[in-house]
């Protein structure tokens, strides 16, 4: 299974973190630090896989953002790499040419899409259409814009 998924920028700023096993807060911070330093230090065109402790680390850079996940030792690195790609495609489809700021400001959407795609560290639905449909359906349930706009801003 996937143990965690991290999205961080070239500057090492964490943009999204998802932990699929219970890990103490301090340990999480250490992992994030290790992953960012390790992955950011790698030269371009290096391979996308690493060993770190007992985990396999698979990462890929998309423009300014690194997608990085930790896998159990028996997992398949290549399919995990494509898992990252599929997630990027899903984000892209939802946001339309997704960028880092989309994920910063619409972090909750990024999380919801991820929950539709991966659950408990395992793949739940690989079909782009099915995931998009689920997200659209939940968007339909949102209150209308007007209702929001009529509320006082802060």
């Amino acid at each position, binding site marked *: *299974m996937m143990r965690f998924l991290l999205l961080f920028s070239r500057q090492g*700023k*964490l*943009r999204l973190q998802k932990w699929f*096993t*219970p890990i103490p807060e301090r340990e999480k911070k250490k992992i994030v630090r290790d992953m960012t330093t390790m992955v950011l230090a*790698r*030269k371009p065109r*290096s*391979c*996308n*896989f690493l060993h770190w*402790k*007992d985990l396999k680390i698979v990462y890929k850079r*998309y*423009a*300014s953002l690194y997608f990085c996940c930790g896998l159990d*030792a*028996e997992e*398949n*690195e*290549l*399919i995990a*790499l*494509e*898992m990252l790609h599929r997630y*990027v495609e899903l*984000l*892209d489809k939802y946001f339309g*040419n*997704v*960028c*880092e*700021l989309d994920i*910063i*400001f*619409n*972090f*909750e*959407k990024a*999380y*919801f899409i991820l929950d539709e795609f991966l*659950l*408990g560290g395992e*793949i*739940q*639905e*690989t*079909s*782009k*259409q*099915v995931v998009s449909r*689920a997200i659209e359906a*939940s968007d339909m*349930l949102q*209150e209308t*814009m007007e209702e*929001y706009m009529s*509320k006082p801003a*802060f």
Partner: protein
Amino acid sequence: SRAGFTGPENLSRVNLVLVKHYSQTLYTLYIRSVYHNLSKEAEIKRINKELANIRSKFKGDKALDGYSKKKYVCKLLFIFLLGHDIDFGHMEAVNLLSSNKYTEKQIGYLFISVLVNSNSELIRLINNAIKNDLSSRNPTFMCLALHCIANVGSREMAEAFAGEIPRILVAGDTMDSVKQSAALCLLRLYKASPDLVLMGEWTSRVVHLLNDQHMGVVTAAISLITCLSSKNPDEFKTCVSLAVSRLSRIVSSASTDLQDYTYYFVPAPWLSCKLLRLLQCYPPPEDGAVKGRLVECLETILNKAQEPPKSKKVQHSNAKNAILFEAISLIIHYDSEPNLLVRACNQLGQFLQHRETNLRYLALESMCTLASSEFSHEAVKTHIETVINALKTERDVSVRQRAADLLYAMCDRSNAKQIVAEMLSYLETADYSIREEMVLKVAILAEKYAVDYSWYVDTILNLIRIAGDYVSEEVWYRVIQIVINRDDVQGYAAKTVFEALQAPACHENMVKVGGYILGEFGNLIAGDPRSSPLVQFNLLHSKFHLCSVPTRALLLSAYIKFINLFPETKATIQEVLRSDSQIRNSDVELQQRAVEYLKLSSIASTDVLATVLEEMPPFPERESSILAKLKKKKGPGAVSVELEDGKERGELNGGADRGGEAAIAASNSTPSPSSDLLGLRSAAPVGGPAPSAGSLLVDVFSEAGSAPPSAASEDPAPPLFVCKNNGVLFENQLLQIGIKSEYRQNLGRMYLFYGNKTSVQFVSFTTTVSCPGELQSHILKCIPSLTHTKPVEPLVEGGAQVQQVINIECLTDFVDAPLLNIKFRYGGALQNITLKLPVTINKFFQPTEMAAADFFQRWKQLSQPQQEAQKIFKASHGMDTEVLKAKLLGLGTALLENVDPNPENYVCAGVIQTKIQQVGCLLRLEPNAQAQVAPPPPPTHTHTHTHLCAHALDSHTASVCPSLCGSHCITHCTHLHVITRYCIYVKDPHRVGSSKSH
């Protein structure tokens, strides 16, 4: 289609997004800090102000409406995700869960998932909300609730929902999307609290999800099924044929058949990989048709690798190769199809030279496991040049690391010199991050495959020269031990260290080895004027001032040894010792040594000096199993590091099997083959402990503290715990396993302590306990306790120890011991160790006290031949009464004093407690100190390791008695005659008390 992460220049669109979804505050929070270049302090100030504001809103008198709550909870999340700690807002988030507005509920769940707090009161509230959503029958709400359970996965949630979720999963009217979430949700709960998730009645319906029409459902369910199968393979074994047919349908489908489940022209790559992974929980299918179909699938997958790609996109080849690698894993797992293994190996060989770095990396990684298969080891070896080349030329350190791992795995006697040489030369430029591991690997390989010791000495000295900082103490201790124990290498070692020390700058570890070896064996090279005693001394002393205190202390000892070896150096050395820098050294240890050595050298006579400073005696050989192997120099037997380990253990444990064979042979009343068998195996000289004795026949007195055996046994057999419950079960260079056990009635509990002796972590550490054979599976229940301990952590840090508890229940009598299998990866190579757990029937003895009259009355009642087992054997050492008594007590019986009229004899009584029966046993041990030849009782053997009794016993009791006899095989006594009489009480209402014996 690369995502267009275009970065901050895309601001205009961000504004739009903000209007659409977001508050001005989030915008300002973020933008101000980033674009106005706020300092860290200023950002924190800004955040704190915002947090104070939110806190006041939450605490304010005015009740917040759902919208505001959601807004502030969302802000808190945002702040948390920017990397700041959040310690409030949980209650408001929980309130949002019960909102009927979807977005509010959704944000509430997200907050709980991201910032879960195991505050029990909150968990109850959260669980309540989840319960409502689960029963809402609104699929969107149900999914939200299931996602939350899967994200949090706490024990409280498992307690609340582990019963409900399987029902949702298999219900006919559940929507597909809910099924998918339920499957993975259940998986998460099962992993966290396996004891709470009871599949039982659901098992078959869950397995049949593999047949579901919806590919998404199958994809989600298969992760659950794989996990459950790996834990309970028998209950889920029907999944094998379903998985094979599903796989076959996917593999043979056209690339467009599966619509959206086709990924870049590859049909259902995720599901294919998962199916292949599931099959790796099982041995090859027994059903010929299923197996044929599977082999066909595997061949198709291998064939497809050769076809031209359907797309140039890297996603296409990645997905295709992901399936290929998974198929290769399965082939390696089966390890039974030479044809497929060779094809797999060839395919990986192609990848080794592929232009994609990822594929080269994976090929090296996969080949590591392939190298440990007997069928493919040779094929892997043919790629040695490519791998060495990868080690030298790969630009990416992680790829080089895999190459080093593979070289280690493919090393055997035939290529050890080449591989060690390459690894040594790589070490000169190796990355710091992997040096320590490389050093250890070189040291292990050098020792393991040393054919001549001079090569070994050269290798280790080179290791110290090249990477001295990374050479751990164990490594240089080892080279010294070996040199001390082998007189044929001592002169060479002295010459080599002398030469190595000539270098103007040498590593301190080299000085240590040099000091020690010259101090012991400098005389062997002193004949050459170029290395005369004084030259040697001056050379060592020239390094003295650059060394740390421990090394200096070692050198001082070397000096005093010099005084003994070379009297002509005495004056010079005494002068050195007498100098202020030694005798008044501020370090106590150095000062003391200088003072004492000086005094010793001036007052002791030459004879005394020669005695005190005599050459070090050989180190006990059994300290290293690898050393024991080294001594044996048994041809190029083993094929790889792992296999060799396996073989060695085979020998270690093989004894037990042979014990079993012997029992069978004896029970066929053909004594001569059995004695031949044993005679052949017990190569050790008479009087030494018998390495071939089975676990139950083991010399129970071996740890009695009597004189050490004259010849060390070839394989340091682990002490087998017939008469003791605690001790070290297994030890090699990497791992030590300690054992502590306690027994009561027919129950036992065993604590295993796994200690990592290296400084490198073991990964994927797993242990399994099995009771071999069909028979054993129902006579000895042996389960690693789930309730008392967590399963062993998959990661064992260097130097750390992990503990495991095993609960044992003896159902009825047994002979074979359960097996403990330990697997872990050490530096990339899979280590696989199988040991017999020292569970013997006598552990379940209840001591029984009885008076003399009672004893003999019973003794006479048990007079039928099949109720008696006798064993007579000659022993080489004098016997000690106290030791004997301790042994008999250790056996678990009561030692009855003043019962036997002959005070020389020992009598014991006990009842073996098993679940279904009790076996009462009376035992008499008759030492005969005078007899040189055994008295000739009807059974025929006087050999130490035979079971005289076994052939006389019917099959039911045979298993009890050999074990008893075996445990009485007391070789350190001069002469012993053991007679055991027993009867069996079956715990059966109709037969209780009948004490009817067989």
